[in-house]
């Protein structure tokens, strides 16, 4: 990976976001709305359950929404940057240069780090100040959580971009659907134990499930088993490498079929 070329890709995205209010606004609007919506919902459920129930919906529900939204923002950070090049018909300009796939993906990931950091900061500000989410009580445990979710988002983002590169511009809508397809198996809002056996089996192969299970265990017992967390980290590292390889393969296919040169023509292949 060449740092200067990677920086150039990230710089293009920075110019786009800096120069357009319509691009900057969504970096935090959706997540802010989610925090307010689920914050009040969590408070209402807390009131309904009453103090004797021993269940605290703010950390349980709002905390889960915050972490899941972070993953989605990372995934969209990668794919929206990719779509910008699709919409601007810029693939020919970029890939007829010394730019490599690693340089390009590196630039998209840097953009995702920046945009998701803005989203995370806004979510934390709202959730902790308005609704009293004790996020920082996780301490250093928050780091492996965020690591797993960040790389899960990167993996989904790269896979989404590969899918659109392979199937053509009309498949763009897949990108918005991919995180939603993973959510039911990720145990975001309910524990793994509440899922049927086949869903649990899938859930064990989905890295975010280790985060949400860990978060619930931490809230209930104050401790987290390091084994499953390490398994989640190893799994997500393997998936990220697999997604990278998948994009490389798709790119090679696009070079063979002429899809890079004439991306807007869907029937080139």
């Amino acid at each position, binding site marked *: 990976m060449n740092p200067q070329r990677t920086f*150039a*890709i990230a710089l*293009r995205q920075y*110019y786009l976001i800096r*120069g357009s209010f319509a691009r900057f606004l969504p970096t935090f609007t959706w997540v802010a709305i989610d925090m307010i919506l689920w914050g009040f919902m969590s408070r209402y459920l807390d009131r309904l359950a009453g103090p004797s129930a021993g269940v605290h919906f703010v950390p349980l529900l709002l905390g889960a929404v915050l972490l899941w939204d972070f993953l989605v923002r990372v995934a969209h950070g990668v794919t929206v940057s990719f779509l910008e090049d699709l919409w601007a018909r810029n693939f020919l300009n970029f890939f007829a*240069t010394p730019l490599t796939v690693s340089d390009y993906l590196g630039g998209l990931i840097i953009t995702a780090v920046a945009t998701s950091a803005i989203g995370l900061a806004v979510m934390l500000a709202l959730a902790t100040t308005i609704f009293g989410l004790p996020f920082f009580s996780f301490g250093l445990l928050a780091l492996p959580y965020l690591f797993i979710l960040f790389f899960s988002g990167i993996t989904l983002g790269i896979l989404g971009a590969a899918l659109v590169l392979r199937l053509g511009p009309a498949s763009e809508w897949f990108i918005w659907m991919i995180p939603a397809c993973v959510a039911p198996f990720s145990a975001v809002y309910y524990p793994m134990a509440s899922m049927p056996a086949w869903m649990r089996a899938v859930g064990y192969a989905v890295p975010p499930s280790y985060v949400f299970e860990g978060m619930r265990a931490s809230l209930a017992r104050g401790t987290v088993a390091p084994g499953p967390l390490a398994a989640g980290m190893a799994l997500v590292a393997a998936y990220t490498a697999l997604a990278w390889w998948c994009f490389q393969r798709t790119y090679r296919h696009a*070079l063979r079929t*002429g899809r890079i040169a004439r991306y807007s023509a869907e029937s080139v292949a």
Partner: protein
Amino acid sequence: MPVLSVTGLSKRYGSVEAVRDVTFAVEPREIVGLLGPNGAGKTTTINMVLGVLEPSVGSVVIEGADLATHRAQALARTNFAAVYSSLPGNLTVYQNLRVFGLIYAVRNLRARIEESLSEFDLLRFRDVKCGVLSSGEQTRVALAKAMLNRPHLLLLDEPTASLDPSMAKDIRKRIRAFADNGGSGVLWTSHNMYEVEEVCDRVLFISKGRILLEGDPRKLPGENGAKTLEELFIALARESLAPEPT
């Protein structure tokens, strides 16, 4: 050493052979015209030289670097402008040149951008988004990008198609000077035979993916019984459009 060596290049899409066994070279300071009717295989050839289309067979070597094995090295010395590939309209002229200048690792980038803006009469459009420029202005931006890294191989696909005659003449002069003074080779496609005669040192007539004729554009018509290059082009294009004997 030639700046570009293309050997036995072919591209097949299923049963369709878009380019068949094309071999040619471009020397330093030489402008080579790639001529042919629509669908002849010119853009397919250029795309393979640019590395955005993988050949079925054959090799592309740019200044000794094989594109298949040393892609980044080969493409660092190349650049292009094509009528069908404008720069992103949502960035300003300066922003586009900065992004591509970084990708091509241009030294003293800020100074080089200012020089290019001045050279292509783009200083007043420095902070204007490319999408709102006229097609002629966009072509000048694309040419400024194409010469930003002072490429040793410049690929131009109908570079003057959207320019008025005065600007087109000026651009031809600049590209000629660029080849002569910088020692670069240029591969140029155009349907304007007057332009080809004025600029190109050598032309390759391509039809149905094959090179039919090659030579000096000023001598070729006489050698092939035509009065002008345009007349020769029309004759070859019509011949190539005729159905092949079965």
